């Protein structure tokens, strides 16, 4: 006959916490990530991230690849800001070789980086809203993201991973339609941005779900190295575009968005406002792209002089630092990528304690983790 039914979920857990596995396959981890969550009823006691499900050993692979080849690997880290990752390696190589690229290259890089940032933030917006149970924003954001991807496809040939940079410049020139289409996109996006605000930002349920949830102070943000919009939501002025300007960021006027609340809503607002700032940057540059060559003359085989080189860039998720140690060969001796998401992940446990399960998901959404960036 039937064996005696033992409820595994609660068997022997009297007075203990309920431990659940969120992931590796879970709708809200945005990738293959596993959180071991200890629960007391609905309340989260602790969150223990387990990473490495998609660790590809990019740093090890880089040691056997030449510098132009490395660029194609960096796409695969934070795939949502692929262009900015490319840029980081290119800037590091250019800095090591003492090459000053022309303004045209800088302008195009900056415009595409900002478009990429908008596309990335749109995807974050859609998935954060979906985490909170609103499915409609997902389609709104993807509709508009598609427009950016079309622009990218025309110019770079890629829709997600562009590999548009190469040491010393760009892979090819911009498409003749590029400026026209970007200029069409800006007013279009301003209009649909209003829609986003009406649909989500002002929603009472949304505000109640995010305000005062997942509090991260400025000191904690600095200590844990939380950068990007998540850090700026806590009042940590960590924007590399302002702190150590690269490419054309020293030539444009834009504000660093800072909110001091440090909750999920502040992080949300930072990203929303940042999209508009990105538009401002694009507007200032798009009409003034100077004429010239799209790539500087480089040697056929790039060998970096011996030494250590750092390059910081601001990806859509925070501060990415490329650390190249060269021994003078055509392949680097050691490459380290300081990925913003790894540091952001480390506050997950801190800020989601004593919150509800639903808040844990909302906090995860507001931190905007990209798992391949953590695992590399």
């Amino acid at each position, binding site marked *: 006959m039937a064996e005696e039914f033992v409820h595994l979920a609660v068997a022997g857990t009297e007075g203990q916490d309920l431990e659940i596995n969120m992931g590796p396959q879970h709708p809200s981890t945005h990738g293959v990530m596993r959180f071991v969550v200890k629960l007391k009823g609905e309340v989260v006691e602790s969150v223990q991230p387990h*990473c*490495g499900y998609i*660790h590809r*050993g990019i*740093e*090890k692979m880089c040691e*056997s690849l030449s510098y132009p080849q490395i660029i194609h690997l960096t796409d695969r880290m934070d795939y949502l800001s692929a262009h900015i990752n490319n840029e980081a390696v290119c800037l590091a190589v250019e*800095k090591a070789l003492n090459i000053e690229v022309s303004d045209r290259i800088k302008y195009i890089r900056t415009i595409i980086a900002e478009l990429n940032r908008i596309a990335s933030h749109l995807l974050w917006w859609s998935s954060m809203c979906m985490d909170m149970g609103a499915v409609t924003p997902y389609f709104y954001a993807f509709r508009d993201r598609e427009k950016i991807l079309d622009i990218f496809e025309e110019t770079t040939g890629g829709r997600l991973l562009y590999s548009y940079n190469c040491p010393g410049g760009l892979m090819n020139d911009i498409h003749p339609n590029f400026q026209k289409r970007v200029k069409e996109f800006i007013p279009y996006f301003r209009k649909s941005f209003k829609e986003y605000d009406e649909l989500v930002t002002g929603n009472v349920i949304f505000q109640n779900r995010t305000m005062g949830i997942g509090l991260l102070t400025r000191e*904690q943000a*600095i*200590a*844990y*190295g939380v950068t990007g919009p998540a850090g700026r939501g806590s009042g*940590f*002025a*960590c924007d590399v575009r302002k*702190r150590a300007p690269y490419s054309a960021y020293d030539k444009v006027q834009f504000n660093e968005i800072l909110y001091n609340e440090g909750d999920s809503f502040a992080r949300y607002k930072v990203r929303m406002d940042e999209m508009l700032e990105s538009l401002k940057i694009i507007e200032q540059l798009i009409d003034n792209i100077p004429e010239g060559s799209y790539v500087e003359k480089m040697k056929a085989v790039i060998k970096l002089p011996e*030494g*250590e*080189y*750092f390059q*910081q860039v601001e990806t859509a998720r925070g*501060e990415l*630092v490329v*650390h190249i*140690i060269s021994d003078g060969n055509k392949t680097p*001796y*050691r490459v*380290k990528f*300081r990925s913003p998401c*790894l*540091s952001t*992940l*480390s506050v997950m446990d801190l800020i989601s304690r004593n919150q509800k399960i639903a808040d844990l998901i909302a906090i995860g959404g507001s931190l905007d983790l990209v798992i391949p960036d953590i*695992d590399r």
Partner: protein
Amino acid sequence: MTNQQLEEVVKRLGVEAVISEAQFLTVEVPFDKLFDLARNLKENEQTQMDYLILITGVDYVSSFGCTYLLTSTTHNHYMVLKTRNIDKANPRVDSVTSLWQTAEYHEREIYDLMGITFNNHPDMRRMFLDESWVGHPLRKDYVDESNIIERKY
């Protein structure tokens, strides 16, 4: 603070250090003096290195090394802290997690991939690889016959 001033501060702290200037001011110290210098740099009013950007573990074939990129959010100056003569047989360095919490995950990553153990680390486990994994992939002498294919040019 300029690099010269930073250099003076480090010298005043009385640590035996090799100071050179590359992209950022680079201070190379023996691994057992590292923690003290790091704490001083963080707590010193003039330096206030409160933000640890990255830790890189390096295999120098003869020894291991760690590179710390530090910056101050108030003064906005950078400094690279280096240590390179970590014993290969028993690689151990003092953890800086008590100074910068972000180091916890970075050190775990280095422990996992490079095999350097950090003293006083709150949670010294592997980060990405399975506990049963043998070896540390980022070491130069790491051999994995099934997964690493030697490239022939």
